[in-house]
């Protein structure tokens, strides 16, 4: 079966700014149609530069990118028509009303007026009641929604969300997540950058990690968590220990909570987890426990590991 063309294809993209700072180094990436892709990376890693190049805000130094098979430079009308961008900051026309600013965005991107679509977008973002209000009168969270509504006004098929929930409260963040989920249901491809790893964990189908301008990993989120994630078994001891007995040394145990807990880390992917042998050795040493719990490492821990590795090396 023929492979479906990616909605976004980036090839060997590099960007060096005038001051000499190399923000992107030979980045290649394909984004599949309809997926939610989370681009993770610390500040200054190159996330916004990557998005800005695809959207036409930053000129690339080398490489190419295409949207739906159209080149972002040569066929800029075709590519930009398909793209919606929600930037990090709050750049909105403060003296305009919500409806008028959406009408402006829709027209700017080449779409004729369509009040039914604008109404649908406003209602999906709980902005319908605010439609005639000036943006200056809205709260920060509402302004963020307006930015998303503006990006959706021209019915894009590829939406970039650059830190969509930065600085918003937990409730609004969860509202945003619902919006993103509904976009997925409508078939819109979403690429989001975020500092909140929990967000990527919650929403993304695939995860990309970028650091120092290099894309160091692109992986299916579930597989990533399965393969790179570790599990910890924590045993609450009946009696505290000062040190880990020598006979248990081979298990690589560590003590926690002033010796009241033993922590065992194991790989879920290996053939044997070693838990049975550990429990037998504990029994042989006369060490008893009153409770036990296991914990899977989060995407955040995996991310921190990935980003730290090259620096440590």
């Amino acid at each position, binding site marked *: 079966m023929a492979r479906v063309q990616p909605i976004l294809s980036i090839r060997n993209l590099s960007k060096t*700014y*005038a001051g000499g700072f190399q923000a992107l180094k030979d980045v290649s990436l394909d984004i599949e149609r309809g997926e939610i892709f989370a681009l993770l990376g610390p500040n200054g890693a190159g996330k916004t530069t990557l998005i800005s190049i695809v*959207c*036409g*805000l*930053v*000129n690339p130094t080398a490489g190419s990118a295409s949207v739906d098979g159209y080149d972002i430079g040569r066929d*800029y*009308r*075709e*590519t*930009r*028509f398909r*793209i919606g*961008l929600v*930037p990090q*900051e709050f*750049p*909105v*026309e*403060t*003296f*305009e009303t919500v409806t*008028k600013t959406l*009408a*402006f*965005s*829709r*027209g*700017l*991107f*080449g*779409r*004729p007026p369509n009040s039914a679509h604008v109404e649908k977008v406003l209602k999906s973002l709980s902005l319908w009641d605010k439609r005639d209000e000036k943006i200056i009168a809205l709260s920060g969270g509402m302004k963020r929604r307006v930015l998303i509504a*503006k990006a959706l006004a021209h019915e894009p098929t590829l939406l970039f969300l650059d830190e969509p929930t930065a600085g918003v409260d937990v409730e609004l963040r969860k509202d945003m997540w619902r919006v993103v989920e509904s976009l997925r249901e409508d078939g819109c491809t979403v690429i989001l950058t975020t500092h909140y790893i929990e967000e990527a964990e919650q929403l993304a189908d695939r995860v990309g990690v970028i650091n120092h301008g290099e894309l160091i990993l692109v992986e299916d989120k579930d597989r990533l968590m399965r393969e790179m994630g570790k599990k910890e078994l924590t045993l609450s001891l009946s009696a505290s220990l000062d040190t880990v007995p020598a006979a248990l040394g081979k298990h690589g145990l560590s003590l926690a909570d002033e010796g009241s807990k033993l922590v065992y880390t194991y790989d879920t992917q290996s053939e044997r987890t070693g838990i049975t042998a550990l429990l037998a050795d504990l029994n042989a040493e006369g060490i008893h426990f009153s409770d036990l719990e296991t914990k899977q490492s989060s995407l955040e821990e995996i991310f921190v590991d990935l980003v730290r590795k090259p620096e440590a090396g």
Partner: protein
Amino acid sequence: MNLHAVKAIYAFEMARMWRTAVQSLVAPVLSTSLYFVIFGAAIGSRITEVDGVPYGAFIVPGLIMLSIMTESISNSSFAIYFPRFTGTVFEVLSAPVSYVEVLLGYVGAAATKSMIIGTIIFLTANLFVPIEVAHPFVMVTFLLLTSVAFCLFGFILGVWADGWEKLTIVPILVIMPLTFLGGTFYSISMLPPIWQTISLANPVVYLISGFRWSFYENADVSVVLSLGMTTLFLLVCLLTVRWIFKTGYRLRT
């Protein structure tokens, strides 16, 4: 051609004008009326005629040009600088629009506003002095060319400026002196010969002279030369804007 985008930008800019109608329309009319009172009535009463035209009527074309130039620069420079300042320019830069469409929207709206102001000042002047226009078509041509050329110049200024000070410094330090020394209130034939020659290096002389000719059929320089210089200025501005969009100067990093 993305006509929806042109319409969106144009409508947005015109809406901004109506939102600030007092500042946009009343202020230039008031300041021009004051010029009429001071130079036309008070001081002008001591000057009988210039080149056979009563002084009050003589200064009308110059005053209209003065307003057109300053308003065109101020409107279009603000129109592009403010979105750059607030960051909202990202939307225009990421939209499927060419520089021609951006210009049609921004410069078209700014030039429309200048034309409206020019017309209002013309009508206001009629309240102070009787005015006849010998060549209405030439008058409208000059009005249009000057509005578009200076709106383009303002657009360049708005892109070049990286602070509010730079945005205002060029109109105050360059345009205002050139306009006042360009024959707004006098004919350059009234100057000593050396200053007449120096004045010919001032591009505003050609604009005002040509525009005044359309009213009273007398000019400091040939009307064809005036038209040619105005068109040349417009083309230089247009090519500069084209270069700005091609290279992304101060717009794209």
